[in-house]
């Protein structure tokens, strides 16, 4: 298990989840959990994914997701899970 948190924030539009999920599927990245809200028309999504079998190295995936975010007009961030668990769990 290689848990990573992907966050997507930006103006809401059709197909954001579809495009991100397609990319993840193509690269053998398994989605474990998705939560999503809309705050003042802003799309806000968090995914917990497992990159254990990912086809590409982490650096390349973050670059790809950066580019994908630019295309859709949202900001996509990709971070190892520990920064959140360390901060919010004793």
């Amino acid at each position, binding site marked *: 298990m290689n848990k990573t948190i992907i*966050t997507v924030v930006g103006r809401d539009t059709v197909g954001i989840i579809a495009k991100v999920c397609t990319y993840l599927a193509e690269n053998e990245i398994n989605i474990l959990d998705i939560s999503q809200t809309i705050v003042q028309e802003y799309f806000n999504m968090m995914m917990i994914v497992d990159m254990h079998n990912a086809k590409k190295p*982490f650096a390349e995936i973050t670059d790809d997701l950066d580019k994908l975010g630019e295309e859709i007009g949202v900001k996509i961030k990709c*971070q*190892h*899970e*520990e*920064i959140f668990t*360390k901060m919010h*769990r004793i």
Partner: protein
Amino acid sequence: MINIFEVNETNEMIEQENLDVRTITLGINLLDCADEDLSVTNDKIYRKITTVAKNLVKVGREIERDFGIPIVNKRISITPISLVGAACCKTPEDYVTIAKTLDRAAHEVGVNFIGGYSAIVSKGMTKSDELLIRSIPQALASTELICSSVNVGSTKTGINMDAVRLMGEIVKETAEATKERDSLGCAKLVVLCNAPDDNPFMAGAFHGVSEDDAIINVGVSGPGVVKHVLEQVRGESFEVLCETIKKTAFKITRVGQLVAQEASKRLGIPFGIIDLSLAPTPAIGDSVADILQEIGLERAGAPGTTAALALLNDQVKKGGVMASSYVGGLSGAFIPVSEDQGMIDSVLAGALTIEKLEAMTCVCSVGLDMIAVPGDTKPSTISGIIADEAAIGMVNQKTTAVRIIPVIGKGVGETVEFGGLLGYAPIMPVNSFDCSAFVGRAGRIPAPIHSFKN
């Protein structure tokens, strides 16, 4: 499992409240580089630093990318050079060659500062200590990335007033030697009392002789985050205030602990300590003075400032120690003037004086920091200021320091611009009454009594 609100909270801290890891500092022992031949010593130093620290910057960047947390500085601290050069340096100029070697090595590995051009003279000064101290003005004028520090006293030994007197002159000479750049050299020179061996923050970082061959120390930050959470508890009791600061300090420190462990694992170098200091930057919203204002002061420097700072400092430590296995270094709130926009504003508004800053240093780390004073300030006056700070550290068993910049050619009312993280500062007036007969006395101030505390 982690939820979306927790993820958003962390990312807001990073993106909007300037949460970052201020520095990963790699401590390197250079004692095994000492040789009777100066050029051999220089070669060994260059080789050791560029070997041990080869991957420091690369690994730092990888950690930033993997966790999405900025690591502002990657730095190196080294064994005090007065020891390393003792066998081969016969003149101050010999020591300057080592400074240039260190500067070259720092550029080669891509760090932004290297600290440890230092001497520990808290009781007495060896010949080599004195040569190193006398070389400081030239060393800082002819290098870019070197930070220098001199420890002139401790609770156990008292204060070496011969060193204090000498440092007044050296600070002034360093200002003169770098006057073309607004006496910038003095921003990289700090005079300490009770200096810790494992401090990751510049300009006082050095790798003490009690340390491992190489060690990773990490300095966290986050005044902006503390300020932001305190906005939510305006008007609440001290209990709520303190709880809020503690919880936030815990969260901030955990990030530092994670980064330290990762850096240690990836570099194959043991983890030393986390320094829990709240270190401000000139960026808007990243200010310790702003926290004091949020606690309830109109300006930093108003009556109540020392108490508010004492409270802040203590809560940061209480929250931080639970978040990390090993805490060390300076660990407290920093109150530099030029590096903190809120402090600068307080000085400009007339709320904050050197005397109030001195009182504040009694309850927090580290001391009179990044304070610009008129260029015609006498060396004996600077020695007097150093002696006062050292006395506060000595009696209160804490680290204190003076990093003061007599800006040659400038006076009260003018400003000086250092650039980058060093910021800018209004030139503050200094008490003009004379203390030369006091600092002119030879010898040292004895160590204080450790009983009958009042």
